[in-house]
Structures are given as structure tokens and as C-alpha cells.
């Protein structure tokens, strides 16, 4: 009996924090409510009032169930990981309500797909009639991707006053593990401070440029805000269906390129630079890894596109080839091409280059997805270390180090962890590719889309459409979710769910 009560305590404590995260994120709906109010979008306004009411009510009910236990039960690792992973599921369902009510999605599944795509900063879209979307819903789409980049748990932790003892466990559960300062609450606040400062500067720059390229001042502001939120969070959403191609502007593309590269860098690196340690940019293993892979992939893609005559001049090769490679590598997913052009014009080799770039991804503890530069660097260093060990005598022991904010000794546990996560990503990618081919898509197209989904990129070759099979939509939702949370917290949630079901069955059988 005592054990049963203790099990319910686990659920209660999880409920409390999930409710807290739900309420924190639901409150963000006030921004699209105000936008809809300002632009007299009455139908959209009602959609958001209904959605925020449902989300707040559910959040409050969840907090009710755990409120009495909050000071009595200590938050353990399993709680932290389950809180993070289940908050994401709950929020995906609740944040999809405005999409569904707007009538711009084919089904609730499509709405959930787009929300998960936003939260995970993937950027693939199933929402229809984007060019006629209300400003309120467009604001919501981009807030989702901006918050998703930083993390909803991080957002909730920033405002948490009491009950912050288990905060670090929840923070790790959301795929972030760098502590910028000893206190995790303050780390979360620093992450938000960095993002908001960039948001102000970036929006201003894009706003001015937007007016130069012919946009009206008010619309230039909203385009700037939306595009910055998407670029910084390496999201890939844009207010118009043509994505970045809508602007037909080199300057706009260059600005977005700068912002999404900065956004794909580790928050610890941002913080180090803010603290005056500018050399860290050059010394850091992640920036080195990103620079090398981006350079090599861009070079070969540009070479092939030039030799095969896809583009006739250097500017075109840069704007189409290099831009899309960097967009893929930083897992942003901004595109200035039509999805089908990758398949019909680029040819196999550049597509394979993009697949590799998408799988590698950006930096750890950033808004980017993929394997992450840090893991690629660790794997590369471990290979060098292994070769070096074989070449040298057994008596000579050499410690291998790499630089990531500080000098770190390469340990077996780090290498093992890096290989484990990379293996999980590759498995997810192969299953996605196989599923695509099962439904009749060409192998390369299936692989491209699977890499884009697994790495939380958002570039499409034309597979992701509202008419694609529902099974693929569900798989893609799961893949985006697993890729963003980096597997472990989701595995713990699955393990706890099955463990709970097993215990329940055993209890029923005994009775």
C-alpha cells in the first residue's frame, strides 16, 4: 500500500512541474491575442482565447494534483527527464489548438505535426494557405519555434521562484547540459537574455533591410521579427509559402545566414564571448568542427553545381548552393529554392552533400539539431587517439585533450556517449528512409527528408506534403521529438510508461 502511494507521488510531482511548464508556455498566447486584437482579426482572436483557456485549465489541474507533494518529495533524475519529455507531448497537443481552430490544417494530426516541427525547430510545414494566414497565427508559429529553440522547460525555469531544487534534472531532460553559472535557474535566464538581446538587434537590422528591399514599414517589421525568430532558433519557418525566396534579395539572405550561423553556436560559447573571451571562437572544438565540415561540404557542392551547369555564375552558386548547405548544416531549413528543385535540378551528389550536412548539424546546447559538432569532434579526436595509441609503444601513455570552453581530457565515457547518440540518430535516419521507400518515394528523396526530419532541419525535397501517408506524419513527429530531446529523456518516459503498465498488470493479475 505504501509503495502504491509512493508511485502516485511520482506521478503527482511530475504533474506539478508539467502543469507549470504548460502554464508558462500557454501564457505566451497572450502575444498572438494582442496581435489579433491590434489587427482586428476577430476569428483568430477567438481561436486563441479558446486555446489559452483550455491550456491554462489543464495546466492548473495538473498543478493541483501535485501541489501538496511538492515540498515533501525530492525531484529525482527520472522525474526530471519525464517532466521534460511529457511536457513536450502535452504542449504539442495544446499548442496545436489554434492551428486546428483556424481551419488552415487538413487535420489535427497536421496541426500537431506543425507544432512539433516548430518546437523542435525543424521547420517543415503542413499548414495550408500560408500566404493568407492571420498575423496572429503567424506570430504564434514563430513564437513556438523561437521558444522551442531555447526550450520550454528553460523558459519555465527562468520564471520559477520556488521549488527549483530539481531544476537541473529537467534542464538536462530537454537536451541541454551546459551550466553557464552554478545555478541552473540563472543559466536559463542567461540563455534568455542572450536570445532577447539578439532578437532586438536582429529584428532591427532585418526591419531596416526589409524597407530597403521594398516592404512597407509595418509589414517589414513583422517579416523581420518572424524571420529573425526563425533564423536564431535555426527553425526555418517563414511567413510566406516561398520561404526566403519570397524576398528575392541577397542582403536579406546574407543577414539570415549570419543570424542562423550565430544561432547554431553553443550558448556556452556565446556566454564566453560575452564575458570577453573572444579567442574561444577560434579555439572551441565545435566551431573548428563546424568550420571544417561547412567548408568542405560547401566547396564540393559548389564545385558540382558549377561543373554540371546548374548555375551559370558565382553569385548564383553562392546564393543557392552555399546558402542551402549552410542552412542545412546549421539545421535551419531556410530555403531560397523550390523543394522539388533539389530533385529535378541539383542531381544526386549535391543532395548527398546536403544529407551529410543535415545529419551533422550545429552545436550542442544551442538551438540546432543533428549529431552536433561537439560529438563529431569527439569522435574524430577518438579516432586520432586510437591510431596514435597503436603507433606508439604500450608504455607511453598520452592523455588526449580537446578545447570546449576549457581544456577537457578525452575520456572513454565521453566517446561512448558520443557514439551512442550518433548511432541512435543514424538508426532513426535509416528507419525514416526505409519508411519513405515503403510508401513509394525514391530512395534519395526518402533519405533527404529523413535526414531533414532527424536532424531537425526543415529543408524538403517535396515528400512532406499534407497528402503524405499518416503513418509517415506520425513517424516524422516522433523522429523530430527524439532528435530534439536527444533520445535519453524520451527513452526514460517510454521505460516508465511500460514499467507502470507492467506493474498495473501484475497487480491486477494478483487480485
Amino acid at each position, binding site marked *: 500500500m505504501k509503495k502504491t502511494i509512493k508511485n502516485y507521488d511520482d506521478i503527482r510531482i511530475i504533474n506539478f512541474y508539467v502543469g507549470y511548464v504548460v502554464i508558462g508556455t500557454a501564457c505566451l498566447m497572450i502575444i498572438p491575442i494582442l496581435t489579433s486584437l491590434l489587427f482586428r*482579426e*476577430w*476569428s*483568430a482572436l*477567438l*481561436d486563441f*482565447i*479558446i486555446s*489559452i*483557456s*483550455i491550456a*491554462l*485549465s489543464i495546466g*492548473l*489541474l495538473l*498543478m*493541483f494534483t501535485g*501541489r*501538496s507533494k511538492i515540498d515533501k518529495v525530492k525531484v529525482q533524475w527520472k522525474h526530471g527527464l519525464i517532466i521534460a519529455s511529457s511536457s513536450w507531448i502535452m504542449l504539442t497537443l495544446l499548442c496545436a489548438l489554434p492551428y486546428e*481552430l483556424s481551419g488552415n490544417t487538413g487535420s489535427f494530426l497536421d496541426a500537431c505535426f506543425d507544432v512539433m516541427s516548430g518546437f523542435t525547430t525543424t521547420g517543415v510545414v503542413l499548414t*495550408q*494557405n500560408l*500566404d*493568407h*494566414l*492571420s*498575423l496572429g497565427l503567424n506570430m504564434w508559429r514563430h513564437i513556438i519555434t523561437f521558444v522551442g529553440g531555447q526550450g520550454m522547460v528553460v523558459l519555465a525555469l527562468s520564471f520559477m521562484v520556488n521549488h527549483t531544487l530539481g531544476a537541473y534534472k529537467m534542464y538536462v531532460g530537454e537536451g541541454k547540459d551546459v551550466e553557464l553559472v552554478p545555478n541552473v535557474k540563472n543559466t536559463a535566464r542567461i540563455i534568455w537574455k542572450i536570445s532577447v538581446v539578439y532578437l532586438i538587434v536582429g529584428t532591427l537590422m532585418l526591419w531596416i533591410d526589409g524597407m530597403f*528591399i*521594398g*516592404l*512597407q514599414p509595418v*509589414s517589414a517589421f513583422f517579416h523581420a521579427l518572424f524571420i529573425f525568430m526563425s533564423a536564431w532558433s535555426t527553425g526555418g519557418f517563414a511567413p*510566406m*509559402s*516561398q520561404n526566403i*525566396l*519570397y*524576398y*528575392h534579395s*541577397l542582403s536579406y539572405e546574407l543577414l539570415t545566414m549570419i543570424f542562423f550561423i550565430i544561432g547554431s553556436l553553443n550558448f556556452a560559447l556565446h556566454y564566453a564571448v560575452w564575458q570577453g573571451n573572444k579567442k574561444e571562437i577560434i579555439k572551441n572544438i565545435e566551431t573548428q568542427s563546424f568550420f571544417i565540415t561547412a567548408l568542405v561540404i560547401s566547396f564540393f557542392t559548389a564545385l558540382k553545381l558549377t561543373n554540371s551547369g*546548374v*548555375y*551559370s*555564375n558565382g*553569385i*548564383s*552558386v*553562392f*546564393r*543557392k548552393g552555399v546558402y542551402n548547405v549552410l542552412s542545412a548544416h546549421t539545421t535551419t531549413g531556410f530555403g*531560397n*529554392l*523550390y523543394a*522539388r*528543385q533539389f530533385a*529535378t*535540378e541539383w542531381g544526386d551528389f549535391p543532395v548527398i552533400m546536403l544529407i551529410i550536412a543535415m545529419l551533422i548539424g550545429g552545436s550542442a546546447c544551442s538551438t540546432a539539431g543533428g549529431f552536433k559538432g561537439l560529438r563529431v569532434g569527439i569522435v574524430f579526436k577518438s579516432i586520432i587517439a586510437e591510431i596514435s595509441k597503436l603507433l606508439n609503444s604500450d608504455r607511453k601513455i598520452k592523455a588526449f585533450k580537446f578545447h570546449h570552453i576549457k581544456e577537457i581530457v578525452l575520456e572513454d565515457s565521453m566517446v561512448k556517449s558520443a557514439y551512442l547518440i550518433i548511432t541512435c540518430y543514424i538508426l532513426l535516419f535509416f528507419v525514416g528512409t526505409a519508411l519513405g521507400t515503403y510508401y513509394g518515394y525514391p530512395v534519395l528523396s526518402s533519405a533527404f527528408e529523413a535526414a531533414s526530419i532527424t536532424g531537425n532541419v526543415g529543408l524538403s525535397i517535396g515528400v512532406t506534403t499534407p497528402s503524405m501517408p499518416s503513418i509517415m506524419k506520425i513517424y516524422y513527429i516522433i523522429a523530430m521529438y527524439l532528435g530534439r530531446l536527444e533520445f535519453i529523456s524520451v527513452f526514460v518516459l517510454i521505460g516508465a510508461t511500460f514499467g507502470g503498465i507492467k506493474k498495473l498488470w501484475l497487480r491486477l493479475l494478483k487480485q
Partner: protein
Amino acid sequence: MVKTFKTMIIICILVFSYSTTCKAKEYNNFNDLIENSKKIDNSNISLKGEAIGECMNRGKYSWVNISDGSTAMGIWIDSTLAKNIKNYGQYGYKGDIVQINGTFNRACSEHGGDMDIHASSVKIIETGGSITMPINNSKKVIALILTFTTMILSISYYKFTKSTSK
């Protein structure tokens, strides 16, 4: 007389065939342009769609994007011609339906490899304008009930928190 008659027939055939070859192929589905881009590169085409977003003036020329309902295409157009398009599609607005004649570029070298159309003429087929967005009455009622429920729950939670913290 026979000679004159024959010459007239030949002239008629030539004029007719010339006009048919020069008549630009019309595209209503822009995906056809993307799928067959290599085939129709640099050829004269005609396409019909809704003007969306806004006109981006770049001096003598402007960018206008037109949509077939699912795919949009960039049109590089003389700014004076662009002024004929008065309405652009967005939330609550239907854009003018326009017919564009121009040269299709698979990867325009002038515009950094963009797939675009350099327009030579524009014709307004249907004038757009504002659309009334219907508001569902049941939505209003549901919104009211839910707001009220949330307020009650918030107050209850606040009281509950106060009572437990004592």
C-alpha cells in the same frame, strides 16, 4: 489570278503558323513550371495567379509574387506595370487575379539563380479586395464559457496554495 490566290493562301498559312508558335503556353499550375523547368527555360510563357503579399519596389522594376493557390512564383516586372495591380492577397484580402506574359528563367543569372519570370505584360483578370471573415457564433459561446472556467480554476488554485502554505 491563280498565282495571287496561291500567294494569299501561303501568306495566311505563314501568319497563322507564326501566331500559333508565338502564342505563349499558359500555366495555371506552377508546379508544372518547376517540374519542367529545364525544358521551358528561357521560353515565353503565360501564367495566371493571385498577387500575394505586397509589391517590392526596386526602382525601375519591382518584384511581385503570384500564387496558383499552393505554389507562388516571383515576377520581375516594370514598376509602372506593377502599379496596375491594386490588391494583394493576405489574411482578409483576396489579391487581384493577374495574367502575366513573360520569359521564364529556371535559374535567372540576373537574380542570383532565382526561378523567376521577367514579365512583358500584365492583365488584371479579376479584381480582388477585402473578404469578410465569418465568425462562428458557437466559438463565441465556447470562448466565454472556457474563459469563465479558467478564471474559477485560477482563483481556486490560488486559495488552495494559500491554504497549504499556512
